[in-house]
Every structure is written in C-alpha cells, then in structure tokens.
C-alpha cells in the first residue's frame, strides 16, 4: 500500500513535468504562428490606404503606379506625367484631395449628405486631364464616370526591397524595411564588438585572476548592472553618452548608432560576464593542474586549457548577450535618433526594429496595413535571432569535438 502511494506520487510528478514542458513548447509555437499569421496579411492589402482610391481622367493612359511614385507625386517631387512615361495633353500633374474640392467647385452646391460628390469629382477630373485624385472609395462608385486606378496589392519586392519607411503616408504608405533592418544589424554588431572583448576580459579576470576579496565585490556589482531598468539606461545614454559622442567625434548630432551600441553593450555585459565566468570556473581542477605541472605558466594555462575547455559556455553567454542587444527596445528608442535612413557608418542616426514596433504599434489601427507591417518586422527579428542561435550552436559543437 505504502509503496503504491509513493509510486503514484512519483508518476504524478513525472506527468506534471511532462505536461509543463509540452505546454511551454506549444505556447512558444503558437506565439510564432500568431506572429506570422498576423504579419502575412499585409501582402493582401491594397497599395493605397484602406477605403480610398486613386482616380484620374478617363483619357489618361496611365496604368500602374508604384507606391513610391504615388508618394512622390503627392509630395510634389514628380510634377509632370512625362517623368512617369505617360503622354498626355496636359503634362503638369495637379492634385485633388477632398479638402481641395472647394477650390474647384462652389461649396454651397455640395449636398449636405455629400451625395452629389461623385458627380462633382467626376466633373473636376473631366475639366483637368492632368489631375490625379485621392478620394474615398464610396465616391468612386455610383455616379462616378472617370478612371479609377487598380494598383494591386503590396508586394514582397516593395516591402523587402523598399528604402523608405513612411507607414502613415497618404495616399500610399511606404513600407520599405531595408533601413530598419540595416539599422538593427548595425547597432547590434557595434554592441557585440564593444561588449565581447570587455565581457570576456572581465570574466577571465574574475574567474582566474581576481583575489577572493575582489571577486566578492565585483560579482554583485556586475549583477546589479542587470537589475537596472532599460529605460534608465536610455535616459543615461541620452544625457551622458549622446553629448559625449557629439563632442568626441565633432558631429552635428549625437543621437547615433554608436550611442545605441554603447548602451546595449553595457546592458549585455552582465549576461556575458556571468555565464562566461561560470563556464570558465567549470574547468576541472585536474586539467588546469596538469597543465601547470607540465611547466605551462598561468597565462598559457588560461589560453590553452581553460578557454578552449569552456568555449561552448562562453559562446552561450555571448549569444544570450546578443539576443538581449537585438531585442532591446526602450534604451535604443531614446538614444539612436530613430531616423529611417540606410546607415553607412555607426556615426549616423539609425532606426531599429524593436524601437519601431514599440513606438508605432500603439496607434496603428488593428488589422490595418501598418499594424501588419509591424508584425512582419517582428517576424524578421525572430528570424535574425534564430539564425544567430543556429550559427553559434554549430560553432560551439565544432569546438567541443576539437577539445574532446
């Protein structure tokens, strides 16, 4: 009876552990699926803002316009139809938004419930062969006699090859992710380059060289770094690091990728140091002593025995550090300037993926193109971290074989 009860409790524990393990895995898979299913919706969205259409004169031969061309037309950067390869008798492009209608048509003749607007807009377009209009869909249906352009959906090439990020631009939002992805990679790369040497140096010192007294102080101080909220790091970066960079490099503006890299490096350090140090300490005493007994000095032992033995642990620490750097939001949002231009050096303002999501998701209408574009950014971030993880896994498994 007693043994049965004990057996039952053990089985219960085992079952519970199994369930919690599988539940966690399922939830993670569900989150990833959710991310991708929300994001993929964007490629079914129209190029022009939801509920609106672009219309031109009936005789205008124009067939297709890219989102970039539409933006440049409405920003008055493209002013003639010739630039678009369209031949038309009135070459100069004029713009019509709803608010402009009173400039072309007496306002008191517009019906109160706006029911005669389709006719009015048609008439204005008829009189101006070179005009392009941005109007609500409803006014381009009944009673509308001019040409509505079918511009198709947002396509993969425009999304992943686009160089401009204007998610709220009217009439055609621009979702070019290149500047944002590049910004993320630049900032993270900079952070790793700064954090890696410092992190490994401190962990070697703390594990192998520091006296017990020093170690007792050093360890809690480093762990304290991990406990500071990221927004505090951001504030520190904005007030201290940004002006410093501006002065040292004599720049016009201090909010740069480098400022982000430095803040991220400081934030990644505790993770890298703690894990790398634990790995170094796990080197068996026998191995170190064997090395010393063979006549190797302290440095040779560290370089040839301790580091190779614990390399997989060190890389694990580095990966976790990088993971923190790539996904970090608040601190970066405050110090990098968030300009969505493709960066060429670390001394330019950059915009990162997490900062973009954090800054924009709150006001993006749910289910709209902007909302879904932010989810795709989330997917890209997920894929980047996944690739880094796989690469490091591969490297550390190789190294392990070498030592063994």
């Amino acid at each position, binding site marked *: 009876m007693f043994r049965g009860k004990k057996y039952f409790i053990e089985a219960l524990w085992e079952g519970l552990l199994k369930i919690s393990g599988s539940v966690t895995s399922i939830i993670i898979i569900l989150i990833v699926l959710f991310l991708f299913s929300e994001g993929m919706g964007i490629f079914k969205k129209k190029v022009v803002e939801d509920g609106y259409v672009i219309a031109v004169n009936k005789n205008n031969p124009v067939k297709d316009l890219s989102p970039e061309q539409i933006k440049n037309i*409405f920003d008055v950067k493209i002013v003639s139809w010739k630039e678009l390869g369209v031949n038309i008798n009135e070459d100069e492009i004029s713009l019509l938004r709803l608010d402009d209608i009173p400039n072309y048509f007496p306002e008191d003749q517009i019906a109160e419930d706006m029911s005669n607007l389709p006719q009015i807009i048609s008439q204005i377009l008829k009189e101006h062969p070179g005009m392009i209009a941005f109007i609500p869909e409803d006014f381009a249906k009944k009673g509308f006699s001019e040409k509505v352009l079918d511009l198709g959906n947002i396509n993969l090439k425009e999304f992943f090859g686009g160089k*401009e990020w*204007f998610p709220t*631009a009217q009439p055609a939002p621009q979702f070019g992710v290149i500047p944002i992805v590049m910004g993320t990679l630049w900032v993270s790369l900079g952070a790793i380059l700064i954090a890696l040497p410092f992190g490994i140096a401190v962990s070697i010192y703390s594990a192998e060289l520091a006296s017990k007294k020093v170690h007792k102080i050093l360890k809690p101080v480093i762990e304290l770094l991990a406990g500071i909220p990221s927004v505090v790091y951001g504030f520190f970066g*904005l007030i201290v690091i940004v002006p410093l960079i*501006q002065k040292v490099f004599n720049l016009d503006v201090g909010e740069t990728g480098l400022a982000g890299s430095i803040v991220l490096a400081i934030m990644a350090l505790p993770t890298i140091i703690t894990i790398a140090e634990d790995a170094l300490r796990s080197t068996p005493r026998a191995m170190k002593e064997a090395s010393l007994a063979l006549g190797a000095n302290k440095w040779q032992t560290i370089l040839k025995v301790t580091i190779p033995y614990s390399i997989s642990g060190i890389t694990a620490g580095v990966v976790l550090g990088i993971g923190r750097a790539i996904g970090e939001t608040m601190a970066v949002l405050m110090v990098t300037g*968030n*300009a969505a231009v493709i960066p060429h050096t670390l001394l330019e303002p950059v915009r990162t993926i997490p900062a973009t999501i954090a800054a924009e998701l709150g006001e993006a209408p749910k289910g709209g193109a902007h909302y879904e574009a932010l989810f795709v950014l989330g997917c890209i971030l997920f894929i980047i971290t996944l690739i880094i993880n796989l690469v490091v896994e591969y490297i550390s498994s190789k190294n392990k074989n070498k030592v063994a």
Partner: protein
Amino acid sequence: MKIKIFGFCLALFLLNLGVNAQKIKGSDSVLPLSQKQAEAYAKKGGRATVTGGGSGVGIAALIDGSTDIAQSSRKMKFGEKAKLVAKKKQIKEVVVAKDALAVVVNPSNKVSQLTRQQLEDIFTGKVTNWKQVGGSDLKIIVYSRETSSGTYEFFKEVVLKNKNYKSSVLSMPATGAIIQSIKQTKGAIGYVGLAYLNKEVKALKVSFDGKKYFAPTIETSKNGTYPIVRPLLYYYDIKKTKVVSPFINFVLSKQGQDIVRQVGYIPVK
C-alpha cells in the same frame, strides 16, 4: 435579510454609477486636461472617468457607443463621418481648449524667425543648412515626434501642407526627449506644445503670410494671430446631451478654463 439589503444597496450604487459617471476616452494630448477637469468636477459632486488611447480610439468608441464623450486633438476625419452617417448618429463638436505648437531651435542659433515656406523646405529636406535661411553655416538637424503622434499629423497638415517629412528626420518618443536633444544639438530644429516651452530652447517667430511674424504665446494663440494652433475637441452624441452637458458646461465655465490655463493649453473663453 442583511444580504438582501446589501444587495439592494449595491444595485442602487451601480445604477447610480451608471447614470452619473461619464466616460471620456481618446486623445493622449487632451488626457491630462480631462483628468484635471474630472478631478475638479468630482469635488463638485460629479463623476467622470477618463481614459486615453489616441484620438482615433476615442472616436471609434463614440461611434459604437462605448463612451459618452470622445476627446480628440484633431477634427473628425472624413471616413469617421461616413461611419457616423451609416450608423445614423448625429454628433456635436465642442472646442474646449486650444493648443499651440512652437517651433524651437537651440538657444545659440542666430535665426529667430521663419516663414511657413521656409519651415516646409526645412522639414521636407529642400533646405539643409542654416545659412540658406539667414543663419550661420551649420547643418540643420530636424527633430520630430513619432509617426503615431497626433502632433506629427497636425504639423504635417498645417505647416507642410500634407507633404511628407524627409526620411532622415530624427523621431523622438516624447516631447521631453525633443527638448533635451535640441538643447544638446546646435543645428537642431523641432516642434513642441506651448506648455512645454522653457528657457533651454528658443522658440521661433513664425509667419504664414511672409510679412508679419508672431511669437508663440498664450495671447497670440488666443487672438488667432499665431498660425500653428489646433483645437482640442470633445465630441458627443446629440441624444446624450442631457447626460454630458453638466460636465461640458463645467469645462467651459470660468473654473474649467482656469484649469485649461494651468495645464498649459489656451482657454477658449
């Protein structure tokens, strides 16, 4: 018996809450104002609960009836009006305060006034050096709010005439961060609400007709000479006039308009 009485009281309390408490939802720019108003209103025995979420969220809630008042920092958009027509609702608009945007630069900047056209050229990237607008030879660094902010849209509409900002604009998550950055950066220009102006940055005089320049102050914004002013609005369903009018009358009263001034906005009366 006791439970019954308690239950009855609870029901009465909830009923009371449902009748008197006015739900106000919407713009985060109007949020601090509405909160202060609600606090003062509570002292007079009224009840109002205020939540943020953005102008669009507030108006959407008004359209489907989940809020009594929608607070907004912009006029209702055409698409929103169309939705109202579809739902056969009639809505009234009340201007409760005004907010002016000041164009600010680093205090060391020699330029002290700009026209609207010059501002447009600077923010859209046609003008990139201060010497092109009468300043010293210094690169112009443009700071802006995030794209999701109502302030961003308002500035784009009024000053840039609906053109897009240049893509190298530095966008900051909050007004405080803009002030901090402009203070630190010599060639910087940006825009902030009048309430945030302080000595760390210099406000520019602005002209829309190219002749007369006006500095952003409460007086010039109130009498309409300063051009970059937006209304802060309350929208409500005409059918609910009786329910919401005590609160709106309070906001428009002398005490309410004093609160407007305290919060840093411009009173309408």
